[in-house]
């Protein structure tokens, strides 16, 4: 509770939280605001924004409602971004914990695997993965997660290595706690804060990667995504730039919101570390 209040005391935390709240609200209310398939043909093609009250943001080349695409796209972006970042965090934290605890050969082996994932650009990896296995939302999520789990793994390992030498871990050992219990009750909660701060950045990266994949036509073609909307608008960029600009702006605002939120989170957590007196 006090952490939440501290998050709200930073301007970037408030701004980020507000942006994300609006997005979440839009995404959740999509079926109410715009019932039906957002990809269906709803009206006249290439209607500019603010011309027809039925289509406040206009329609695209095929006569699809841009507003509907935008809010359903928010669903996809947030869902895929969060799911990918969550999977990446789980995988990264597990591998980092295992490496930090096991040490020696296991540590070396796991860290070489992490190296292998770190030297391949995450986007290329996702691209290769999706184009080989085929396009579906779980595959896209997995592909993005595979490119993002290496950083949290490294950070977790470093945290575990530092914290396992702390006196309070030794004192947990001398009151007879089981090593597994020490790992989950003493070390993990203390190792997590910086890794959690990293998670927001991973969410932002995942949203961008998802948009890039669907821009290239490697997203799920049956759901509305911002990436595919930008790609669709590209062919009429001169006559109807709004078709690319609107989803592009939505994407930029989302990523900005996530970054602001993470900035606020880091500050709130950072204050936490200072209260030792």
């Amino acid at each position, binding site marked *: 509770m006090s952490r939440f209040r501290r998050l709200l005391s930073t301007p970037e935390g408030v701004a980020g939280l507000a942006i994300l709240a609006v997005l979440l609200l839009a995404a959740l209310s999509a079926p109410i605001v715009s019932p039906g398939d957002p990809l269906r043909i709803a009206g006249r093609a290439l209607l500019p924004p603010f011309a027809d009250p039925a289509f406040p943001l206009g329609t695209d080349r095929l006569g699809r409602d841009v507003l509907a695409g935008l809010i359903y796209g928010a669903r996809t972006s947030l869902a895929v971004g969060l799911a990918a970042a969550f999977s990446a965090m789980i995988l990264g934290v597990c591998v980092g914990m295992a490496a930090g605890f096991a040490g020696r050969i296991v540590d070396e082996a796991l860290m070489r695997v992490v190296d292998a994932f770190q030297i391949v650009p995450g986007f290329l990896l996702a691209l290769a993965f999706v184009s080989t296995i085929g396009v579906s939302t779980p595959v896209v999520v997995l592909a993005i997660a595979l490119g993002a789990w290496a950083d949290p793994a490294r950070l977790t390992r470093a945290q575990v290595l530092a914290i396992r030498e702390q006196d*309070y871990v*030794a004192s*947990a050992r001398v*009151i*007879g706690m089981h090593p597994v219990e020490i790992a989950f009750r003493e070390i993990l909660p203390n190792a997590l804060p910086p890794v959690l701060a990293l998670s927001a950045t991973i969410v932002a990266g995942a949203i961008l990667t998802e948009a890039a994949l669907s821009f290239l036509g490697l997203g799920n073609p049956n759901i509305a995504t911002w990436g595919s909307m930008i790609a669709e608008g590209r062919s009429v960029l001169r006559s109807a730039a709004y078709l690319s600009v609107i989803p592009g702006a939505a994407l930029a605002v989302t990523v900005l919101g996530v970054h602001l939120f993470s900035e606020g989170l880091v500050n709130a957590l950072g204050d936490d570390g200072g209260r030792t*007196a």
Partner: protein
Amino acid sequence: MSGIFCSLRQFSVTYARGNKAAALDRIDLDIKAGERLAIIGESGSGKSTLARALAGLLPDGAKVGGEMHWPALGHPPRPGRDFGFVFQDPGTSLNPLLTIGEQIAEGARRHLGLGWKQALIRAEELLGRVRMPQPDKVLRAFPHQLSGGQRQRVAIAAAVAARPALLIADEATSALDVVVQAEIVRLLDGLVREDGMTLVFITHDIALASGFVDRIAVFRDARLVEAGPVRSVLSAPKSDYTAVMIASHRDLSTPPLIAEASP
């Protein structure tokens, strides 16, 4: 209670890899049941290694030679149940994310078979015994809300939560100021007396220790220099090193160090 609680014979510890010098070199020492034994030595003398060896806290690579027996127990000591351990720095020996109550109750819950509620009641009792004001509030506090001396009291309460027979205090007063040191020593003395615990008190401060322990063991360069009852060690030290250490004890009547150095 009489007899030998723990006996060390030709006990050696070497921290592995490259470092050939032993941290403890063929120690012969008996810890008698119910006694208060002070282990005294300068930094690097091996006294903390001894504490960690007794508690099974040596790092993975350490090589141990010789014998360590626990005649009073008849089995290797169970951490927390058979011995409690108080660390030097109370700032780092408490988990910053757990409440004081949880940290003290853990040992009681684990070894005395209490439920969480009973264990918390026991924790409150223990906080009273270590003379913390308002134990019910402290129970819900986090370590950063307490002062150094209070944290060390909490650490002591956590160490004795499961009624161990042996309490090992590794430089438990070194991170505290002199007034608080005296309070903690008085507290340890009281607890050990009331519960009939054996105390191993590790320190570099011979004056502080000699005020309340029964026996003193002096360590230097990984070896046991001498061991004996406080009075005989203080009045008639067998080794020159002990004599030098007693002579170098400083109090207010000693001329200040800086004045000595200036011409």
